[in-house]
């Protein structure tokens, strides 16, 4: 008499566990991919509506004695946002021209210049501002939150926002002349 025995059925990973694992992995990969995509993105692009941000201002560089400024409060004006730092040599190339441009547009009241001091120390920043006679509003980029929003790649970088709060032009690197700056502002005033 021969005895035949059926082999025990192989018990693999249950279907629900397989699905869970795969969905979990796909979810994680999606998050990583989104992070990589964001890292590879350039600066914010013209045509994009700029979200509100708050810039604390250095004393002596305030607007209407306010210690901080909100971008949304400047709606209806052209806003020139200049990222700079005292340790940045290329920033020095455009500092005088930026101040000249500010002096030309300040009386009109239609243009606001904001200097955003990137990863800097206040004492050195003040030395820089004094050296170039800069008088427009300036303040530190606390927590680098503003530069992260604009996804700046370095300094100097300048962003021109129109009266409706839409970004119209991005200048990566220093301006070489006053006319270059005016060429970006004048069309936004029409």
């Amino acid at each position, binding site marked *: 008499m021969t005895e035949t025995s059926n082999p025990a059925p192989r018990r693999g990973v249950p*279907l*629900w*566990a397989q*699905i*869970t*694992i*795969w*969905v*979990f992995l796909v*979810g*994680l990969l999606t*998050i990583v991919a989104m992070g990589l995509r964001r890292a590879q993105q350039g600066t914010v692009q013209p045509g994009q509506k700029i979200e509100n941000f708050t810039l604390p201002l250095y004393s002596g560089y305030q607007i209407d004695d306010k210690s901080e400024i909100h971008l949304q409060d400047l709606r209806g004006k052209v806003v020139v946002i200049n990222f700079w*730092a*005292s*340790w940045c040599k290329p920033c020095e190339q455009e500092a005088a021209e930026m101040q000249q441009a500010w002096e030309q547009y300040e009386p009109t009241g239609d243009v606001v210049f904001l200097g955003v001091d990137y*990863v*800097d*120390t206040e*004492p*050195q920043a003040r030395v820089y501002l004094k050296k170039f006679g800069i008088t427009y509003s300036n303040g*530190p980029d*606390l*927590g*680098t*939150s503003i530069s*992260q929003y604009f996804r700046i790649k370095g300094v100097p970088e300048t962003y021109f926002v129109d009266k409706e709060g839409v970004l119209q032009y991005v200048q990566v690197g220093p301006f070489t002349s006053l006319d270059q700056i005016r060429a970006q502002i004048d069309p936004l005033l029409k």
Partner: protein
Amino acid sequence: MKLTSYKVPLALLLAVTFTLLFSLMASAQGPTPTDDDVNRVAKQLYCPVCESTPLDVCPTEACRQWRDLIRTMLAEGKSEEEIKQYFVTQYGARVLAEPPNRMVSYLVPAAVILLGALLLARGFQMWMKPRVTETTVADEQREAEPVDPYIARLEDELKKQK
């Protein structure tokens, strides 16, 4: 010029007084931090401009300014933690060599994904499970019925031939 007898002790008294005052002022400011003191804090920080380079060995102007600031703050009597907190406030948590415990920020999305996956798997499992239909009930009834003796014998013969 001949000094009168009372002028000498007065000059000495003034000299001692000024020396004491000067030393008191100096001690109030704290001892001047050494490079090692500065670097002990600096190596715990990274400048966002020079990624992957600790502040204590970073050669850029920005990092030199940061080290100067650390030296100033140490001289003012600030602790390591106070200095690090200042840098975090100013430049963000990414300046820390050891980021703060952010388990929650990682665990919450992971938990959400896992929960979603479990729900999806459960839904898929229910979808795959065969329904108890009238057909299957009918099949069961048919199986329960007594088998025709002729068919039973035929099946036995077939089994033997295998």
